[in-house]
């Protein structure tokens, strides 16, 4: 029974509000796109949900709890850059995750790694950028979490892998979970989204269902994004 509530949330770095007075409620059973241009505050917002950053002001609760030890059990997080020890190979990282997370399914992780043609004994530091991303995503998606926070999950991978990842997200879909995906590659993912959140200069400028956007504006989410964030 996942639920995220964010109230009056601000994160200030120096004199810049990276996240500026955001309010947001996310319900279970949804795949949500957190969409915004570079530097709009996506990663800062997600990091506050994970507890890696503390808010300057305002609150976040996940299942009624502030981010901390308890929420980490329920949240599977894919960071925007690699945070895993890169001397380890796929075998070792799967074992590491199995140690760390009660909800981790090693069999599922292995099956996905095989599907994507990973070499189980290659250390992470020798992997290509795309392969590293695949492995990190596999580890996150093999958890049976309440909340998935995926920060730019498809940035560096080829289109065939992108399809595989999207299918993985769909097949993993569960009515009790929330999947939050941040990206600026909207055309690739918009078909799998329930809800769309546009973020600009740390503020939420739109929160609607993807289907509402298509119906009301007679355009795709990608086209609306290009219009809203026109440079």
């Amino acid at each position: 029974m996942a639920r995220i509530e964010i109230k009056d949330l601000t994160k200030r770095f120096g004199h810049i509000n990276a996240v500026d007075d955001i309010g947001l409620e996310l319900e279970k059973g949804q795949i949500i796109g957190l969409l915004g241009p570079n530097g709009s505050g996506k990663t800062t917002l997600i990091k506050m949900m994970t507890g890696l950053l503390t808010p300057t002001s305002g609150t976040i609760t996940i299942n009624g709890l502030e981010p901390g030890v308890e929420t980490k059990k329920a949240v599977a997080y894919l960071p925007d850059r690699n945070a895993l020890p890169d001397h380890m190979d796929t075998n070792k990282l799967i074992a590491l995750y199995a140690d760390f997370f009660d909800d981790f399914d090693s069999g599922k992780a292995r099956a996905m790694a095989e599907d994507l043609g990973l070499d189980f004994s290659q250390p992470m530091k020798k992997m290509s950028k795309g392969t590293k991303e695949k492995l990190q995503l596999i580890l996150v998606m093999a958890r049976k979490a309440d909340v998935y926070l995926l920060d730019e999950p498809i940035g560096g991978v080829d289109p065939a892998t992108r399809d595989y990842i999207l299918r993985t997200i769909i097949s993993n879909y569960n009515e009790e979970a929330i999947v939050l995906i941040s990206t600026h590659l909207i055309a690739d993912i918009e078909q799998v989204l329930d809800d769309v959140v546009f973020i600009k200069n740390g503020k939420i400028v739109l929160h609607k269902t993807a289907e509402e956007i298509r119906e009301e504006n007679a355009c795709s989410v990608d086209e609306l994004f290009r219009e809203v964030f026109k440079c």
Partner: protein
Amino acid sequence: MEWNFKNGIPIYQQIVDEMTMRIASGSYAPGAKLPSVRDLAMDAGVNPNTMQRALAELERRGLVFSERTSGRFVTKEVAVLRKLHEELARVYFDEFAAKLMKIGMSATEISESIGKWISELPAQKAAE
């Protein structure tokens, strides 16, 4: 089977149209069991809630029905399928007629040309 989605039209509507076509053409046979929502969603690459909404709409239109425990099936009702066929044929005809009129053909010309063109179709197709 390929799914292609256009921009600017709700995806559930496009799924409804595509599935209607598959049912009308018999590629989903009368009475056939449909794949699960999740499998259909994966196949089409869409959100499972969107697929669910499309199937609910098809159900409302009487083209599919669900059985509590065993899943969703294509209707077996001949009358429903025949009506669907007629409606689709009419939509296609109207589109086709509108295009011909747009290039300046009159109703008589269209009618005469259709007679001529049908006789020129490959023999097997025309006999069907």
